[in-house]
Protein backbone atom coordinates (compact mmCIF):
# COMPACT_ATOMS: atom_id res chain seq x y z
CA UNK A 1 0.00 0.00 0.00
CA UNK A 2 1.68 3.19 -1.09
CA UNK A 3 0.11 5.26 1.67
CA UNK A 4 2.16 3.41 4.22
CA UNK A 5 5.77 4.62 4.21
CA UNK A 6 7.44 3.13 7.29
CA UNK A 7 10.36 4.78 9.00
CA UNK A 8 13.42 2.58 8.73
CA UNK A 9 17.10 2.57 9.50
CA UNK A 10 20.07 1.05 7.71
CA UNK A 11 19.49 -2.43 9.10
CA UNK A 12 16.00 -2.64 7.63
CA UNK A 13 16.76 -1.44 4.12
CA UNK A 14 16.99 -5.00 2.93
CA UNK A 15 13.44 -5.76 4.05
CA UNK A 16 12.01 -2.89 2.07
CA UNK A 17 13.64 -3.11 -1.33
CA UNK A 18 11.31 -1.66 -3.95
CA UNK A 19 9.11 0.01 -1.32
CA UNK A 20 8.67 3.61 -0.33
CA UNK A 21 10.07 4.39 3.08
CA UNK A 22 11.05 7.27 5.34
CA UNK A 23 14.64 7.52 6.41
CA UNK A 24 15.65 9.91 9.13
CA UNK A 25 19.29 10.66 8.57
CA UNK A 26 22.23 13.01 8.87
CA UNK A 27 23.67 14.31 5.64
CA UNK A 28 27.41 13.74 5.58
CA UNK A 29 28.36 14.56 2.00
CA UNK A 30 26.74 15.85 -1.18
CA UNK A 31 28.35 15.29 -4.58
CA UNK A 32 26.28 16.48 -7.50
CA UNK A 33 22.95 14.66 -7.34
CA UNK A 34 24.07 12.04 -4.87
CA UNK A 35 24.15 12.45 -1.14
CA UNK A 36 25.80 10.23 1.43
CA UNK A 37 23.83 10.06 4.64
CA UNK A 38 24.03 8.34 7.97
CA UNK A 39 20.90 6.52 9.10
CA UNK A 40 19.75 6.47 12.73
CA UNK A 41 21.68 3.26 13.37
CA UNK A 42 24.87 4.68 11.89
CA UNK A 43 24.65 2.89 8.53
CA UNK A 44 25.84 4.83 5.50
CA UNK A 45 23.24 5.13 2.77
CA UNK A 46 23.58 6.56 -0.69
CA UNK A 47 20.72 8.81 -1.75
CA UNK A 48 19.98 9.50 -5.41
CA UNK A 49 18.39 12.92 -5.45
CA UNK A 50 16.19 14.36 -8.13
CA UNK A 51 17.97 17.21 -9.90
CA UNK A 52 16.94 20.57 -8.56
CA UNK A 53 16.24 19.37 -5.03
CA UNK A 54 17.20 22.13 -2.64
CA UNK A 55 20.37 21.15 -0.78
CA UNK A 56 19.63 19.48 2.48
CA UNK A 57 21.96 20.12 5.33
CA UNK A 58 22.40 18.39 8.65
CA UNK A 59 19.34 16.33 9.50
CA UNK A 60 16.58 15.33 7.11
CA UNK A 61 13.85 12.82 6.57
CA UNK A 62 14.19 11.32 3.11
CA UNK A 63 11.05 9.82 1.60
CA UNK A 64 12.02 7.54 -1.24
CA UNK A 65 12.17 4.09 -2.80
CA UNK A 66 14.69 1.57 -1.57
CA UNK A 67 16.90 0.43 -4.44
CA UNK A 68 19.42 -1.79 -2.64
CA UNK A 69 20.25 -2.34 1.00
CA UNK A 70 22.43 0.78 0.92
CA UNK A 71 20.83 2.96 -1.73
CA UNK A 72 17.65 4.93 -1.81
CA UNK A 73 16.06 6.98 -4.58
CA UNK A 74 14.64 10.18 -3.15
CA UNK A 75 11.11 11.36 -3.87
CA UNK A 76 11.04 14.20 -1.40
CA UNK A 77 12.91 15.30 1.66
CA UNK A 78 11.99 17.22 4.74
CA UNK A 79 14.42 19.38 6.63
CA UNK A 80 14.86 18.23 10.22
CA UNK A 81 17.07 21.05 11.41
CA UNK A 82 20.51 21.05 12.90
CA UNK A 83 20.02 19.00 16.01
CA UNK A 84 18.45 15.60 16.30
CA UNK A 85 18.90 12.85 18.83
CA UNK A 86 19.65 9.91 16.55
CA UNK A 87 19.58 7.37 19.37
CA UNK A 88 16.04 8.44 20.17
CA UNK A 89 15.05 8.30 16.52
CA UNK A 90 16.55 4.83 16.22
CA UNK A 91 14.67 3.68 19.31
CA UNK A 92 11.48 4.76 17.58
CA UNK A 93 12.32 2.83 14.42
CA UNK A 94 13.09 -0.29 16.43
CA UNK A 95 9.89 0.10 18.45
CA UNK A 96 7.76 0.39 15.32
CA UNK A 97 9.28 -2.76 13.85
CA UNK A 98 9.24 -4.68 17.10
CA UNK A 99 7.25 -7.82 17.87
CA UNK A 100 4.43 -6.24 19.87
CA UNK A 101 1.17 -6.74 18.06
CA UNK A 102 -0.50 -3.60 19.39
CA UNK A 103 2.30 -1.46 18.05
CA UNK A 104 2.32 -3.17 14.66
CA UNK A 105 -1.38 -2.42 14.30
CA UNK A 106 -0.78 1.27 14.86
CA UNK A 107 1.80 1.61 12.13
CA UNK A 108 1.21 -0.97 9.41
Amino acid at each position, binding site marked *: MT*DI*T*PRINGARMNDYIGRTVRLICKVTKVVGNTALVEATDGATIEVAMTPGTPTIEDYAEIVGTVVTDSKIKMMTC*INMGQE*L*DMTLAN*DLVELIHGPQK*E*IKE*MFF
Partner: protein
Amino acid sequence: MSQHDFAGGYVQGSQFGENSPSTKKATSHSLRPVTIKQLLASTQAHGDAEWMLGDCEINHVTAVAHVLNVLVNPTNHVFELGDGTGRIEARHWVDASTEGDEGQGDGVTEHMYARVTGTLKQFGNKKYLNVAHIQPVNDPHEIIFHFFEAVYVTMEYSRGSPGGGGGTGDPMQGVTFGGNQSAYSHQNQGSGDQYSHMNETERKIMQFLRGQDTGGDGIHVAAIGRAIKEDPAVVSDTLEKLVEGGDVFITSDNHFAAI
Protein backbone atom coordinates in the same frame (compact mmCIF):
# COMPACT_ATOMS: atom_id res chain seq x y z
CA MET B 1 9.16 22.71 21.14
CA SER B 2 6.34 24.70 19.62
CA GLN B 3 3.68 26.18 21.88
CA HIS B 4 1.46 23.28 22.57
CA ASP B 5 -1.17 23.30 25.26
CA PHE B 6 -2.31 19.75 25.00
CA ALA B 7 -0.16 16.67 25.01
CA GLY B 8 2.71 17.75 27.23
CA GLY B 9 3.88 14.26 27.97
CA TYR B 10 0.84 12.85 29.70
CA VAL B 11 -2.76 12.29 28.87
CA GLN B 12 -5.05 14.51 30.86
CA GLY B 13 -8.49 13.75 32.15
CA SER B 14 -8.35 10.00 31.80
CA GLN B 15 -8.87 7.32 34.39
CA PHE B 16 -6.25 4.60 34.27
CA GLY B 17 -5.62 1.59 36.40
CA GLU B 18 -9.13 0.26 35.83
CA ASN B 19 -10.64 -1.19 32.78
CA SER B 20 -14.34 -0.76 33.44
CA PRO B 21 -16.60 0.35 30.57
CA SER B 22 -17.32 3.66 32.28
CA THR B 23 -13.61 4.41 32.17
CA LYS B 24 -13.59 4.14 28.43
CA LYS B 25 -16.48 6.62 28.15
CA ALA B 26 -14.81 9.21 30.36
CA THR B 27 -11.91 9.33 27.97
CA SER B 28 -14.04 11.03 25.36
CA HIS B 29 -13.09 14.30 27.04
CA SER B 30 -9.38 13.74 26.74
CA LEU B 31 -7.03 14.32 23.84
CA ARG B 32 -5.64 11.18 22.32
CA PRO B 33 -2.41 11.12 20.33
CA VAL B 34 -2.83 8.82 17.34
CA THR B 35 -1.29 7.64 14.11
CA ILE B 36 -3.21 8.21 10.90
CA LYS B 37 -3.57 4.46 10.58
CA GLN B 38 -5.46 4.48 13.86
CA LEU B 39 -7.76 7.22 12.57
CA LEU B 40 -8.45 5.26 9.41
CA ALA B 41 -9.10 2.15 11.49
CA SER B 42 -11.66 3.88 13.70
CA THR B 43 -15.31 3.13 13.18
CA GLN B 44 -18.61 4.82 13.80
CA ALA B 45 -21.83 2.86 14.29
CA HIS B 46 -23.87 5.49 12.51
CA GLY B 47 -23.62 9.14 11.53
CA ASP B 48 -24.08 10.63 15.00
CA ALA B 49 -22.48 7.90 17.04
CA GLU B 50 -19.16 8.20 18.77
CA TRP B 51 -16.00 7.03 17.03
CA MET B 52 -14.43 3.87 18.31
CA LEU B 53 -10.82 2.79 18.08
CA GLY B 54 -10.81 -0.83 19.17
CA ASP B 55 -12.62 -0.84 22.51
CA CYS B 56 -12.10 2.84 23.15
CA GLU B 57 -14.14 5.79 22.31
CA ILE B 58 -12.09 8.53 20.71
CA ASN B 59 -13.13 12.09 20.38
CA HIS B 60 -10.44 14.74 20.29
CA VAL B 61 -7.30 13.48 18.63
CA THR B 62 -3.90 14.88 17.85
CA ALA B 63 -1.44 13.84 15.19
CA VAL B 64 1.88 14.95 13.78
CA ALA B 65 2.22 14.51 10.05
CA HIS B 66 4.01 15.48 6.89
CA VAL B 67 2.00 18.08 4.99
CA LEU B 68 1.74 16.66 1.50
CA ASN B 69 -0.57 19.26 0.07
CA VAL B 70 -2.29 22.50 1.04
CA LEU B 71 -5.35 23.91 -0.62
CA VAL B 72 -6.48 27.36 0.45
CA ASN B 73 -10.16 28.00 -0.23
CA PRO B 74 -12.17 31.06 0.82
CA THR B 75 -14.00 29.22 3.59
CA ASN B 76 -11.63 26.45 4.46
CA HIS B 77 -8.11 25.14 4.17
CA VAL B 78 -7.62 21.55 3.10
CA PHE B 79 -4.45 19.75 4.09
CA GLU B 80 -3.37 16.36 2.86
CA LEU B 81 -1.47 14.74 5.72
CA GLY B 82 0.72 11.65 5.78
CA ASP B 83 2.65 10.33 8.75
CA GLY B 84 4.10 7.12 7.33
CA THR B 85 1.16 5.02 8.56
CA GLY B 86 -1.46 6.40 6.20
CA ARG B 87 -2.87 9.50 4.60
CA ILE B 88 -5.85 11.61 5.58
CA GLU B 89 -7.42 14.86 4.59
CA ALA B 90 -7.71 17.56 7.24
CA ARG B 91 -10.12 20.43 6.84
CA HIS B 92 -9.84 23.64 8.73
CA TRP B 93 -12.94 25.80 8.46
CA VAL B 94 -12.02 29.44 8.60
CA ASP B 95 -13.71 32.75 8.35
CA ALA B 96 -12.46 36.31 8.58
CA SER B 97 -12.19 36.16 12.38
CA THR B 98 -10.06 33.03 12.52
CA GLU B 99 -7.44 34.21 10.05
CA GLY B 100 -5.70 36.32 12.68
CA ASP B 101 -1.94 36.67 12.44
CA GLU B 102 -1.47 33.17 11.16
CA GLY B 103 -2.32 34.31 7.71
CA GLN B 104 -3.30 32.05 4.90
CA GLY B 105 -3.04 28.35 5.64
CA ASP B 106 -2.18 28.84 9.32
CA GLY B 107 1.52 29.13 8.51
CA VAL B 108 1.44 25.52 7.39
CA THR B 109 2.85 24.74 3.96
CA GLU B 110 3.89 21.68 2.02
CA HIS B 111 7.13 19.85 2.84
CA MET B 112 6.91 20.50 6.55
CA TYR B 113 5.60 18.55 9.49
CA ALA B 114 2.56 19.91 11.29
CA ARG B 115 0.87 19.22 14.63
CA VAL B 116 -2.87 18.96 14.19
CA THR B 117 -5.67 18.52 16.70
CA GLY B 118 -9.28 17.90 15.82
CA THR B 119 -12.10 15.42 15.56
CA LEU B 120 -12.75 12.63 13.12
CA LYS B 121 -15.54 13.10 10.60
CA GLN B 122 -16.90 11.18 7.67
CA PHE B 123 -18.27 12.47 4.40
CA GLY B 124 -19.73 9.69 2.28
CA ASN B 125 -17.30 6.90 2.88
CA LYS B 126 -14.29 9.12 3.21
CA LYS B 127 -12.86 10.00 6.59
CA TYR B 128 -11.34 13.36 7.27
CA LEU B 129 -10.10 15.30 10.23
CA ASN B 130 -12.06 18.35 11.27
CA VAL B 131 -9.23 20.62 12.38
CA ALA B 132 -9.48 22.57 15.61
CA HIS B 133 -5.88 23.68 15.44
CA ILE B 134 -2.94 23.16 13.12
CA GLN B 135 0.53 24.58 13.34
CA PRO B 136 4.00 23.88 11.99
CA VAL B 137 6.32 21.58 13.92
CA ASN B 138 9.50 23.47 14.70
CA ASP B 139 11.47 20.84 16.56
CA PRO B 140 11.91 17.43 14.89
CA HIS B 141 11.88 15.79 18.30
CA GLU B 142 8.17 16.56 18.45
CA ILE B 143 7.66 14.04 15.65
CA ILE B 144 9.52 11.33 17.52
CA PHE B 145 7.81 12.27 20.78
CA HIS B 146 4.38 12.07 19.22
CA PHE B 147 4.81 8.49 18.04
CA PHE B 148 6.19 7.37 21.38
CA GLU B 149 3.29 9.07 23.12
CA ALA B 150 0.75 7.46 20.80
CA VAL B 151 2.27 4.05 21.51
CA TYR B 152 2.35 4.71 25.25
CA VAL B 153 -1.28 5.78 25.41
CA THR B 154 -2.45 2.91 23.23
CA MET B 155 -0.57 0.38 25.35
CA GLU B 156 -1.95 1.95 28.50
CA TYR B 157 -5.49 1.50 27.22
CA SER B 158 -4.88 -2.11 26.36
CA ARG B 159 -2.71 -3.12 29.31
CA GLY B 160 -3.22 -0.66 32.14
CA SER B 161 -0.53 1.56 33.61
CA PRO B 162 3.05 0.40 33.72
CA GLY B 163 4.23 -0.83 37.11
CA GLY B 164 1.10 -2.38 38.50
CA GLY B 165 -2.50 -2.33 37.36
CA GLY B 166 -5.23 -1.17 39.68
CA GLY B 167 -4.42 -0.30 43.18
CA THR B 168 -0.99 1.14 43.74
CA GLY B 169 -2.22 4.70 43.87
CA ASP B 170 -1.73 7.47 41.39
CA PRO B 171 -0.66 5.88 38.12
CA MET B 172 0.89 9.11 36.98
CA GLN B 173 3.44 9.40 39.79
CA GLY B 174 5.60 11.88 37.90
CA VAL B 175 6.68 9.26 35.39
CA THR B 176 8.89 10.93 32.84
CA PHE B 177 7.73 9.91 29.47
CA GLY B 178 10.02 8.66 26.83
CA GLY B 179 12.84 6.48 27.87
CA ASN B 180 13.78 6.34 31.50
CA GLN B 181 13.13 2.70 32.15
CA SER B 182 14.46 2.84 35.69
CA ALA B 183 11.57 5.11 36.66
CA TYR B 184 9.24 2.16 36.24
CA SER B 185 11.38 -0.29 38.12
CA HIS B 186 11.20 1.83 41.27
CA GLN B 187 7.44 1.78 41.53
CA ASN B 188 6.13 -0.07 44.52
CA GLN B 189 4.71 -3.37 43.41
CA GLY B 190 2.66 -3.64 46.59
CA SER B 191 0.09 -6.33 46.63
CA GLY B 192 -0.96 -5.81 43.04
CA ASP B 193 0.15 -8.91 41.23
CA GLN B 194 -0.21 -8.27 37.55
CA TYR B 195 1.84 -11.34 36.88
CA SER B 196 -0.91 -13.67 37.94
CA HIS B 197 -1.32 -14.84 34.35
CA MET B 198 2.35 -15.77 34.09
CA ASN B 199 3.98 -18.96 35.18
CA GLU B 200 6.61 -19.19 37.89
CA THR B 201 9.62 -18.66 35.63
CA GLU B 202 8.09 -15.65 33.86
CA ARG B 203 7.23 -14.09 37.17
CA LYS B 204 10.73 -14.57 38.57
CA ILE B 205 12.25 -13.06 35.46
CA MET B 206 9.91 -10.05 35.56
CA GLN B 207 10.56 -9.41 39.23
CA PHE B 208 14.29 -9.70 38.77
CA LEU B 209 14.35 -7.37 35.76
CA ARG B 210 12.10 -4.87 37.49
CA GLY B 211 14.45 -4.68 40.41
CA GLN B 212 17.43 -3.90 38.24
CA ASP B 213 18.39 -0.35 37.50
CA THR B 214 20.33 -0.87 34.34
CA GLY B 215 19.74 2.54 32.79
CA GLY B 216 18.32 0.90 29.71
CA ASP B 217 21.25 -1.40 28.97
CA GLY B 218 19.43 -4.53 29.99
CA ILE B 219 20.76 -7.73 31.49
CA HIS B 220 22.39 -10.59 29.66
CA VAL B 221 20.29 -13.74 29.47
CA ALA B 222 22.97 -15.77 31.29
CA ALA B 223 23.00 -13.31 34.17
CA ILE B 224 19.22 -13.55 34.43
CA GLY B 225 19.52 -17.34 34.53
CA ARG B 226 22.09 -17.22 37.34
CA ALA B 227 20.09 -14.73 39.35
CA ILE B 228 16.84 -16.67 39.30
CA LYS B 229 18.58 -20.06 39.33
CA GLU B 230 17.02 -21.41 36.17
CA ASP B 231 18.48 -23.18 33.18
CA PRO B 232 19.61 -20.58 30.60
CA ALA B 233 17.79 -22.37 27.79
CA VAL B 234 14.53 -22.21 29.73
CA VAL B 235 15.19 -18.57 30.52
CA SER B 236 15.86 -17.88 26.86
CA ASP B 237 12.59 -19.46 25.76
CA THR B 238 10.63 -17.69 28.44
CA LEU B 239 12.20 -14.37 27.52
CA GLU B 240 11.16 -14.86 23.93
CA LYS B 241 7.57 -15.29 25.07
CA LEU B 242 7.78 -12.22 27.27
CA VAL B 243 9.18 -10.14 24.40
CA GLU B 244 6.33 -11.19 22.16
CA GLY B 245 3.86 -10.29 24.84
CA GLY B 246 5.52 -6.92 25.13
CA ASP B 247 6.53 -7.19 28.79
CA VAL B 248 10.23 -7.35 28.12
CA PHE B 249 12.31 -5.79 25.40
CA ILE B 250 15.68 -6.54 23.89
CA THR B 251 18.22 -3.80 24.47
CA SER B 252 21.15 -5.38 22.67
CA ASP B 253 22.35 -8.81 21.71
CA ASN B 254 20.95 -11.19 24.35
CA HIS B 255 20.34 -8.40 26.84
CA PHE B 256 16.84 -7.85 28.17
CA ALA B 257 15.01 -5.30 30.22
CA ALA B 258 11.49 -5.02 31.57
CA ILE B 259 9.00 -2.56 30.16
